[in-house]
């Protein structure tokens, strides 16, 4: 089990060092919220802020979400768990941020918990990873459980479903959507401003929370996140009506990995699969 206290200490120490030395303008980490189960993202800007930093098993927020809020060129340190680090990699690939402006404080962790249900989320939404894929400082020992978890096992029961049943399942889910857009707010990849759904030219879908508008919103969002979603699961945890969006994202990620032989956000040098091609891509992917 991860020693959360130890990581918190190391995080504070590193943050302090960086802020004191002035090597970063801000350290993105977590701080106390309403209670232990609801920590908040936190931007430490002075050495004194460091005292407020915490880290526990409920610190799920993907801090990569907040990097793009700072002006280009700002030096930023970010605490990154496995999925967060992948989000950072995608943002670098997409040229939203530059690697040299980042100091990545890597957190190897297992045993993170869902704030609402308290269940351990490792196998569901971390892409099966426990260690960050890229970092400058590691705040704990790398974790090697020896048993690699397939991030896609959870999909099996849905893949097996009959099409009509699957449609009914998703229809019921999407019909719940109240269009609060918490999913896109939580998503580190959803930095579009404005989002396609807020457009008036064209108006892609109805803006009120109705069945068909919801379907259009979600399906298009899945398409836009294809090859980019890094399976942090934040969309799902943010959802007030508990739509298991992560399942759909995971399925698209799985298909992309099978078709294009590459998982999102694993290596900075990788090309973005949806704005790339290979001449030898098979027509089979269209079958």
């Amino acid at each position, binding site marked *: 089990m991860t020693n959360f206290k130890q990581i918190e200490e190391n995080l504070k120490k590193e943050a302090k060092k960086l802020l004191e030395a002035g090597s970063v303008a801000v350290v993105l980490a977590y701080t106390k919220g309403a209670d232990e189960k609801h920590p908040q993202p936190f931007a430490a800007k002075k050495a004194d802020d460091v005292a407020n930093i915490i880290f526990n098993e409920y610190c799920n927020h993907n801090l990569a979400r907040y990097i793009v809020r700072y002006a280009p060129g700002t030096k930023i340190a970010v605490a990154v768990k496995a999925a967060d680090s992948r989000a950072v990699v995608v943002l670098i690939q997409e040229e939203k941020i530059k690697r040299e402006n980042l100091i990545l404080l890597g957190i190897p962790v297992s045993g993170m918990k869902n704030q609402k249900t308290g269940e351990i989320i490792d196998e569901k939404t971390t892409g099966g990873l426990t260690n960050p894929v890229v970092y400058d400082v590691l705040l704990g020992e790398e974790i090697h459980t020896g048993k690699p978890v397939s991030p896609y096992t959870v999909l099996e029961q*849905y893949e097996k479903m009959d*099409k*009509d*049943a*699957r*449609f*009914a*399942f*998703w*229809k019921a889910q999407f019909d719940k959507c109240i269009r609060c857009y918490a999913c896109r707010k939580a998503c580190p990849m959803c930095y579009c401003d404005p989002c*396609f759904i807020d457009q008036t030219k064209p108006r*892609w879908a109805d803006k009120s929370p109705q069945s*068909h508008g919801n*379907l*259009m919103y979600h*399906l*298009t969002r*899945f*398409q836009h996140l*294809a*090859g980019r979603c890094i399976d942090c699961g934040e969309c799902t945890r943010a959802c007030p009506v508990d739509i298991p969006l992560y399942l*759909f994202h995971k*399925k*698209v990620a799985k*298909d*992309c990995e099978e*078709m*294009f032989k590459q998982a999102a956000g694993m290596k900075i040098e990788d090309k973005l*699969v*949806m*704005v*790339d*091609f*290979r*001449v030898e*891509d098979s*027509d089979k*992917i*269209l079958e």
Partner: protein
Amino acid sequence: MEFEPKILGIACNWCTYTGADLAGTTRLKYPQNLRVVRVMCSSRINPSFIFRAFQLGADGVLVGGCHPGDCHYNTGNLYARRRLAVTKKILDFAGLEPSRFRVEWISASEGNKFAEVVKEFTEHVQILGPQTKFKIAGVS
């Protein structure tokens, strides 16, 4: 009465649209359930067009582009291939029969192929029956 599906075609100007014209010039007969939208390149096709077409009542959507390697814009169809492959997977996981959406490479000289594909696809969609899952209630 036999079910007459509505099929949306989106064809690139240089290959498939021209191929479709050739099918006409050579007076090949094929089912007329297909209505073709002309775009300059298959890569122009925004995946949301496909979702939208199904919402607007399409029973099938057929996209036609140049053969890979023969794109008028060199590589457009190679990007399109990836983009539309993902679209198809999304339709599938959402529970829509993925075979209602088809991408075919049909060159300007393949009038025959165009007619055959349309015939075969129309028959296929006919067997699948009306598409009701995505269709917005009330659209004709």
